[in-house]
């Protein structure tokens, strides 16, 4: 590249219209250039870079030591941990891992939970990646999955039945989160479209619902689910508490989802409706083929935000006496053998949520990028 100086004569030495494409001078690209511009460009930038480097230098070794190098992975009690290492006592988490994952699900039946998880992943792949081979069949499976999964977990029809009271731990978070996510999107879409309807009754119903949901804390709705809903079902019928919670969480997320999607719908120019209507497409065709693909794409950040919020809100079931992963962690702290290990528990729970939510967020970025190339 040093020769570029000589190859790059002063302006005007080419006859007009014959200037060839030249490579940029080496000072305009390459890693050195990048570092210079992005990390040390200007005083503020340099100070921030140094400050950040100092923080990393302080934190990273400490964390690595605490979490891995100095941590105890085996042991029967806190004393065992302290005898062998000065860092985190992961043996505590390890000894209760089953509880963290399955809650109080009967041990002999836990394979059913595992199978449900595996099938969940199989069902998600065709939904999330449109290049999945045999996607059509995969999608049919995904539609059937809630029923298969429900049957596997609850039992009946040949399987030993398990009460939903025994559900707990991470599996409870995943069940509530996935159900809420799967159902709140379509319900949110319907609510958002209803809010734009030219039929006043439909519009009033949708607006009323959305405003009510957004005006009430989720905890309140969960209490309602736990206590009040049983007044509305005929006495004697047993309306499962978990189902009530699922309904409440889904409706709660739907209200938010509707508003996010409404934002996307408003960004679609009127001409798109006119062109689609003008072809003779019916209302639902216009929505499904023309409007929603564009509106949902715009709404992805908001939709994912709502999903992540919902997923984290699943820990609130603790207020109605259900022990999710956080609840299990909290109650484990009372164990006298393992006293004082709250840091380990909360780090573990936080990591679980972080990994889940970060994956959702990464997927949404992938999706946005993919859809962006199509515009």
């Amino acid at each position, binding site marked *: 590249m040093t020769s570029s100086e000589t190859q790059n004569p002063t302006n005007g030495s080419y006859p007009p219209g014959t200037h060839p494409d030249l490579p940029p001078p080496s000072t305009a690209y390459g890693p050195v250039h990048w570092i210079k511009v992005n990390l040390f460009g200007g005083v503020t930038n340099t100070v921030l870079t140094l400050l950040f480097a100092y923080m990393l230098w302080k934190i990273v070794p400490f964390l690595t030591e605490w979490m891995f190098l100095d941590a105890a992975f085996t042991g029967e009690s806190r004393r065992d941990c302290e005898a062998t290492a000065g860092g985190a006592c992961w043996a505590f988490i390890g000894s209760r891992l089953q509880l963290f994952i399955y809650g109080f699900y009967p041990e002999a039946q836990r394979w059913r939970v595992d199978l449900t998880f595996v099938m969940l992943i199989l069902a998600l792949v065709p939904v999330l990646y449109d290049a999945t081979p045999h996607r059509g069949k995969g999608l049919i499976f995904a539609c059937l999955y809630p029923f298969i999964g429900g049957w596997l977990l609850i039992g009946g029809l040949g399987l030993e039945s398990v009460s939903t009271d025994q559900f707990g731990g991470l599996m409870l978070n995943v069940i509530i989160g996935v159900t809420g996510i799967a159902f709140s999107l379509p319900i949110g879409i319907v609510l958002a479209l209803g809010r734009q309807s030219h039929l006043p009754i439909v519009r009033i119903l949708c607006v009323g619902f959305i405003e009510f949901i957004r005006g009430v804390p989720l905890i309140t709705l969960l209490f309602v689910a736990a206590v009040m809903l049983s007044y509305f079902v005929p006495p004697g019928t047993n309306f499962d508490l978990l189902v009530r919670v699922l309904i409440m969480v889904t409706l709660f997320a739907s209200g938010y989802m509707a508003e996010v999607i409404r934002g996307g719908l408003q960004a679609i120019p009127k*001409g*798109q409706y*006119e*062109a689609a209507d*003008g*072809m*003779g497409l019916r209302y639902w065709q216009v929505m499904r083929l023309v409007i929603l693909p564009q509106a949902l794409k715009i709404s992805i950040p908001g939709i994912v935000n709502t999903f992540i919020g919902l997923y984290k809100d699943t820990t609130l079931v603790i207020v109605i006496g259900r022990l999710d992963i956080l609840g299990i962690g909290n109650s484990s702290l009372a164990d006298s053998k393992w006293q004082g290990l709250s840091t380990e528990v909360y780090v573990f729970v936080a990591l679980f949520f972080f990994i889940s939510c970060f994956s959702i967020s990464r997927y949404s970025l992938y999706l946005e990028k993919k859809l962006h190339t*199509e515009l």
Partner: protein
Amino acid sequence: MSEVDISEESFTPIESSMGEEELIQIVAMHKWYGEFHVLKDINLAVKARERIVVCGPSGSGKSTLIRCLNRLEEHQQGTVIVNGIELTGDLKKIEEIRREVGIVFQHFNLFPHLTVLENCTLGPIWVRGTPKKEAEESAMKYLERVKIPEQALKFPGQLSGGQQQRVAIARSLCMNPKIMLFDEPTSALDPEMIKEVLDVMIELASTGMTMIVVSHEMGFAKTVADRVIFMDEGQIIEQNEPHEFFDNPQHERTQLFLSQILAH
């Protein structure tokens, strides 16, 4: 606004305005936007194969008029009969009419999330129930007719304005309509792209398509139109055969309008 150079030979008129059938009949139609009386007592009959150019000052109701023909806007009084079907609130009838009436907009309104080919096959597949493969073949035929078959797999955002408008025309033609409506199809285009779109429209006219075109392109009107309609303040002020219309306007508002667009 300008007279684009269109050689009159490029257009071979075939027997037009001879069909018996009246495809569009508007009788004493009125339309209001709220309190605003936008169309006043419109009477117009369009025969099959007839080509009509509508002009008039901005805000005179030209767009509204042609949008009343496929019920993108509803009229409040009078009757509009298109292809033998009276336009009422009946959704079934509206859909039936929209299938037979293509519309091309000033701003193209292509679907940005679909490829050019998908834009063209959407209507045939979902409205007419044409099998996908057949719809694609026919779409390619129309894309060739508007001279952009090589762009079929691109997205609208990757095309120039003129190309987009030609895709929009092809998209409408794919529905095999009996009537084509154009709402200022060239007024959002750069001058060098106007001709490519007008050429496509002239070619279309030569096939005997019934067309109603809102446009100020005098050259186009003179070449193609059987009749030029002048609108002002929601009324049809004057209509005439194009040469007569431009050379010898009767009404003083028409004279004023023509002098203004010629002044450009």
